[in-house]
């Protein structure tokens, strides 16, 4: 079988698997977010947390709860990393320095998982478990909780209540993230991902007599939630390129499925909750269209392998693994940058100029196809609001979406949402390019060096976490500014989404009339896609022109 045929079949099997789980997984998440019944164990946990599960929160209370757990999370993680050398089962790893610990704490709490450290020689079991694993679960669930409030904003009428954060969070972790991680984690162990807890590194004497220590780690448990929760922070520096994190073609495929499955099923949850599955199909179709386009573009660019070094090599295999080959690497790369995962199974820095440029563009889209757990869908819904607004302008009437009027207040929140992330990404890129010490971190020169910087802040502001990894990020500048970019890029948009949800929930339901733009039609899907590309294109084109386009089109 040719490489191209197997590449198509791998992608086809992925689409099939996502299509099969779309309904059950989407319906299940809708059930989690709407059910009136608490599990007994959940009631016990609410008592331990000291929260009232029956209280319905207003949007300001809800967002303050989100921020509270995030602040506490950052502080706890920071402390754990700073005192690692005093914790048990740390494998003799030293404490993390202050700026790096700040960066790492912000990174994992914001679902970014940008890593300025080499995992296998920086973190022991305790920091991985108590610190990182916990945030992998919590940050993923927070994203879904936030999109749940936005959906409730459309569903509910004349109320200032948008849900209970503690209930949403607890249920999403207990009923969704945990059981899925256990099942898929076991599959990963069975197929070769290590999971062990010995209190020392395995000493190895190689065939030629060299000796050294081997880090195996409790990798599978981290790997499962890393992909499922679109986190992306690996045990190893090489992330999912490392044979322990991703041993073979099957695990590679499974990891791509895991990082896409929640994002692609959430439109079903949305459709179910707003009472029209067609609304969900439209969103899923736009996500699928953009994802397929990106994967095809990236695969094409990598197969053509334009570039002087690639021409001598005869392929784009520098930075890619033989057991995956080009198609499975490109499929992973586009999926990870279109979600907020940021795990990598190949080194994006060594991708062709336009292949790597596609990865940057994917993140610039705001990670909405399908995006991070929850954050992808709320990004897409904000763009849908912008779309009905644009369409409303054309015919000169007040736009509506799902029976809610899009008035100046809603548009302000939507516009602020759209502006927040690009502002962080572009302003911080500008600052870095104007700072000599920041520029010194580049591994490559010329446009490719600029692409490294642009990629870094686009990735951090969008909470992706993948990198053009040549950039030496472990410096005062990058740790500090990166931590800031990730925090702003995560929580500013969330505030605007919650405000939008609150504003929508207060409205009464407006019945559709003849003049209402139907939002469950292919026409709307087309309009939405157009708006996405126009908004992103206008925002980022100048920056793209200086980096990947300058390198790829010369």
């Amino acid at each position, binding site marked *: 079988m040719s490489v191209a045929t197997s590449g198509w079949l791998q992608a086809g099997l992925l689409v099939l698997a996502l299509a099969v789980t779309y309904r059950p997984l989407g319906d299940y998440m809708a059930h989690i977010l709407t059910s009136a019944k608490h599990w007994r164990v959940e009631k016990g946990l609410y008592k331990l947390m000291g929260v009232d599960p029956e209280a319905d929160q207003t949007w300001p209370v809800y967002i303050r709860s989100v921020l509270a757990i995030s602040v506490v999370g950052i502080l706890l993680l920071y402390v754990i990393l700073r005192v690692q050398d005093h914790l048990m089962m740390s494998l003799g790893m030293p404490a993390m320095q202050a700026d790096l610990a700040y960066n790492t704490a912000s990174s994992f709490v914001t679902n970014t998982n940008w890593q300025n450290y080499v995992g296998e020689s920086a973190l022991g079991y305790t920091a991985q478990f108590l610190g990182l694993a916990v945030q992998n679960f919590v940050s993923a669930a927070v994203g879904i909780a936030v999109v749940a409030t936005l959906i409730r904003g459309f569903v509910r009428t004349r109320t200032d209540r948008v849900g209970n954060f503690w209930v949403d969070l607890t249920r999403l972790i207990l009923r969704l993230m945990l059981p899925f991680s256990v099942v898929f984690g*076991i599959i990963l162990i069975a197929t070769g991902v290590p999971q062990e807890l010995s209190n020392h590194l395995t000493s*190895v004497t190689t065939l030629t007599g060299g000796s050294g220590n081997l*880090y195996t780690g409790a990798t599978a448990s981290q790997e499962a939630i890393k992909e499922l929760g679109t986190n992306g922070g690996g045990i190893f520096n090489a992330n999912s390129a490392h*044979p*322990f994190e991703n041993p073979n073609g099957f695990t590679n495929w499974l990891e791509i499925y895991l990082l896409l499955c929640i994002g692609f099923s959430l439109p079903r949850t949305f459709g179910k909750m707003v009472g029209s599955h067609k609304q969900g199909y439209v969103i899923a179709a736009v996500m699928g269209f953009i994802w397929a386009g990106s994967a095809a573009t990236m695969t094409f660019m990598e197969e053509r392998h334009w570039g002087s070094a690639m021409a001598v090599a005869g*392929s784009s295999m520098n930075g890619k693994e033989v057991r*995956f080959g080009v198609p499975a690497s490109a499929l992973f790369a586009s999926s990870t940058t279109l979600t907020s995962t940021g795990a990598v199974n190949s080194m994006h820095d060594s991708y062709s100029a336009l292949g790597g440029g596609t990865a940057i563009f994917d993140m610039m889209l705001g990670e909405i196809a399908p995006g991070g757990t929850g954050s992808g869908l709320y990004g897409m819904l904000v763009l849908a609001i912008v779309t009905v607004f644009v369409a409303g302008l054309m015919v000169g009437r007040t736009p509506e979406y799902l029976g809610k009027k899009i008035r100046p207040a809603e548009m302000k929140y939507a516009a602020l949402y759209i502006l927040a992330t690009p502002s962080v990404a572009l302003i911080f890129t500008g600052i870095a390019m104007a700072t000599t010490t920041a520029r010194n971190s580049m591994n*490559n020169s010329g446009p490719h060096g600029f692409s490294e910087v642009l990629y870094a802040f686009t990735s951090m502001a969008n909470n992706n976490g993948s990198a053009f*990894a040549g950039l030496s990020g472990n410096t005062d500048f990058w740790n500090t500014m990166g931590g800031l970019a990730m925090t702003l890029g995560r929580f500013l948009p969330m505030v605007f989404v919650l405000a939008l949800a609150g504003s929508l929930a207060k409205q009464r339901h407006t019945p559709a009339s003849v003049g209402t733009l139907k939002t469950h039609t292919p026409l709307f899907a087309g309009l939405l896609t157009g708006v996405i590309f126009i908004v992103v294109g206008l925002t980022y084109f100048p920056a793209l022109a200086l980096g990947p386009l300058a390198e790829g089109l010369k």
Partner: protein
Amino acid sequence: MSRLPGPVLRHLAALRAMLVFTVICGVAYPLVMTGIGQVAFKNQADGSLITNSKGQVIGSKLLCQTFVSSSAAETALNKKDEVTGYADPINKYFQSRPTFAIDSTAGGYTIQLADGCNYAASGSNNLGPNDPTLTKLIGLMRTNMAAFDSAGGTTVTAAQVATDAVTESGSGEEPYITPENADQQAARIADARGITVDQVEALIKANTSGRDIGILGEPAVNTTTLNIALDQKYPSSDTSTTAFTTGATS
């Protein structure tokens, strides 16, 4: 408690929630997973380790090993600098993919085979598609490998060298090479060990994994298990190496 101001209460609830989730997701989850893994899939859970007849761990079948001149090999895993023969491969072993790393004395990226398979720091060179140094090093690897693999009456030209033999993997830990790369190295192995190419080819075949369920991933030859099988079946005391041009300019 209830007399405390709202923000304090909220952060206390957040702290208690974080502690609850730390116990569930940070303690129970990884421990349960480790338990299941250790009981049900002991070999995989331990990292697919390979032990020799004396019971010593000699590697993992998922990770590569460097097969370079012995002086370099001694220090390879601990990554000590300034060892001579850092890029000189041993003739009788299959070579996994090359490593391009920064050589502090040369002041830039050079070919350093002994620097590969460093279990304490995975990763790649991260050089871009148009990088002049990378272009040069890949070109050097072509001529290096062509000379290296032209043995036992077989001639390999620079243009014929397999693409994965001249490029670094993403992880720097990958034991796998393409079947084309393995075939290209077979004549050299046979020559160094005094066996026939067919005998080598049979072992290559035994250490090749196809695509999972027929479509996932790419066929790959595991150099770690293949070299162990070679040493077991066709032991050889030959320790000759071939000098590689490293690209160091100083």
